[in-house]
């Protein structure tokens, strides 16, 4: 099975994240960069499926040069090779542009299964899996909490508010996974050494056959027009429990008409 896992490098949620004054795009230098957490679950699921059914796992990442750190980490977990789509003209792309670019690469490298995280921690749109499915014309199996492949049949549990839906489709397909679907492995020392020699193919827009008019900040279909640091919430009342804490909390709720 030819499995491609889409991995995004994002600013660490533990560091302070901000936008750039100049063009209101993400300030990638201001924060430590890590693999988007949900994508680690996607990588793990790809590795498990390849182990169970045979095949190769390719990491696909679109991002600036620095994204190679995240690509190497994914390879050290056990993926076989990687494609890095990197081009200055991609900077500032919105989801529509990103999905066009990734779909073009996927069309070129081919796949049986594309695996994504269900949401990134910076953009938080959670729409890329649906967009890729739409663009590639293959089934969308998103928010998977369980994945089973049997020949060309694929079945997932799709997480819902009330529980889950069982969804079936035929490969090729796009899936996205939620955290808790598995336990992502840590790279072993051997894995880290091996990753250094694994092939990482860099592609430019031209290599990928992406229309430059569909991507980048200038062509984005949506844009940030203004932003502000949010003022801290006004300090409230804090009381120490002296045997009457529950009562005081009830008084507060009554004063605000919640009870």
């Amino acid at each position, binding site marked *: 099975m030819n499995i491609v896992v889409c991995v995004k490098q994002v600013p660490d*949620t533990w560091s302070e*994240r*901000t*936008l750039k004054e100049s063009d209101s795009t993400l300030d990638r230098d201001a924060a430590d960069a890590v693999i988007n*957490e*949900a994508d680690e679950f996607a990588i793990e699921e790809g590795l498990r499926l390849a182990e169970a059914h045979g095949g190769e796992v390719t990491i696909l990442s679109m991002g600036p040069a620095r994204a190679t750190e995240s690509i190497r980490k994914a390879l050290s977990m056990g993926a076989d090779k990687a494609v890095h789509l990197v081009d200055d003209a991609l900077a500032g792309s*919105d*989801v*529509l542009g990103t999905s066009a670019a990734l779909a073009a690469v996927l069309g070129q490298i081919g796949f049986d299964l594309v695996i994504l995280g269900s*949401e990134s921690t910076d953009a*938080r*749109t*959670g*729409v*890329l899996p*649906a*967009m890729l*499915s*739409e663009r590639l*014309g*293959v089934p*969308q199996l*998103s928010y998977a*909490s369980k994945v089973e492949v049997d020949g060309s049949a694929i079945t997932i549990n*799709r997480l*819902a*508010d*009330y*529980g*889950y*839906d*069982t*969804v079936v*489709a035929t490969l090729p397909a796009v899936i996205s996974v939620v*955290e*808790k679907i598995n336990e992502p492995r840590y790279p072993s020392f051997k894995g880290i050494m091996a990753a250094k020699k694994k092939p990482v193919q860099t592609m430019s827009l031209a290599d990928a056959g992406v229309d430059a008019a569909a991507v980048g900040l200038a062509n*984005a*279909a*949506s844009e940030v*027009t203004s*932003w*502000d640091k949010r003022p*801290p*919430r006004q300090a*409230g*009342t*804090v*009381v*120490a*429990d002296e045997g009457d*804490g*529950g*009562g005081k*909390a*009830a008084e*507060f*709720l009554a004063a*605000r008409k*919640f*009870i």
Partner: protein
Amino acid sequence: MAEILVLAEHDGETVKKVTLELVTLARRFGEPSVVWTGPGAEAAQARLAEFGAAKIYVAADPEYDDYVVAPKAELLAELVKQASPAAVLLPSTAEGREVGGRLAVKIGSGILTDAVGIGDDLSAEQVIFGGAINVSSRVRSGTPIIAVRPNAITPEAAPADPMIEPVSIAVSDAAKQAKITERVVQQRGARPELTEASIVVSGGRGVGSADNMALIEKLADSLGAAVGASRAVTDAGWYPHQFQVGQTGKTVSPQLYVAVGISGAIQHRAGMQTSKTIMVVNKDPEAPIFELADFGVVGDLFKVVPQLVEEIEKRSA
């Protein structure tokens, strides 16, 4: 006046509150046209009328519910073509955002997700990076597609007499690739749904065990609230994943959020920061969650919460 398409979220009988919120928002920009898929439109009609729906497109074919997302996107794309609406509004739920994403590709429009408000020029107000930054953004090309966070605004009644327009567009084969074969309902108490609830009571690691989550449920029930949990709790398996609040869980925006035994890590705050009122019970006065609290009790939750439940029950008796 131009139409504003609003995709209804419903369970086949009752329309979800977020749909009424979207209709309320839509009234500011044009004539709200609700798009209903699958059965149940008749039952919901009165409620949609009460909040000002000018038109209801009813695509009653039950097949709309049998496949993941794609049929709804296809329907909306067709209606955008027919009605040239000024905007398409969807709930910023997993499903709503995905329908919006596919629609954006189909009609070549920009999409904005997780809006907590909409400006006069159809710009979306968003809160990003765990509540650190307010952003205003807009769609530059195509019909704006905006997904709005449930509970971000209050629905306001404005009675209307909606026109019912049956739509008989068959679901295409292309939209039938991912078939839903079973819906498994795991949890369905009398409690309101997490993202729709006006009060949410969440438990954190301080609660200590799966059994002790009963205390959180008890407090929630005394307030008619939904139950939420921090990731520490869902990771430990003390409560199901779908109740996780935070960056990788649900984003909630209730009138009242009660955080019990939760420290308030940035990733948790990302999911509850826009709650209107926040109450905290935590034994550590240094816990960062107190920075958000309108009212906080520093104390042992096993003493404070039972007393609080007792007080609430006394007052409502």
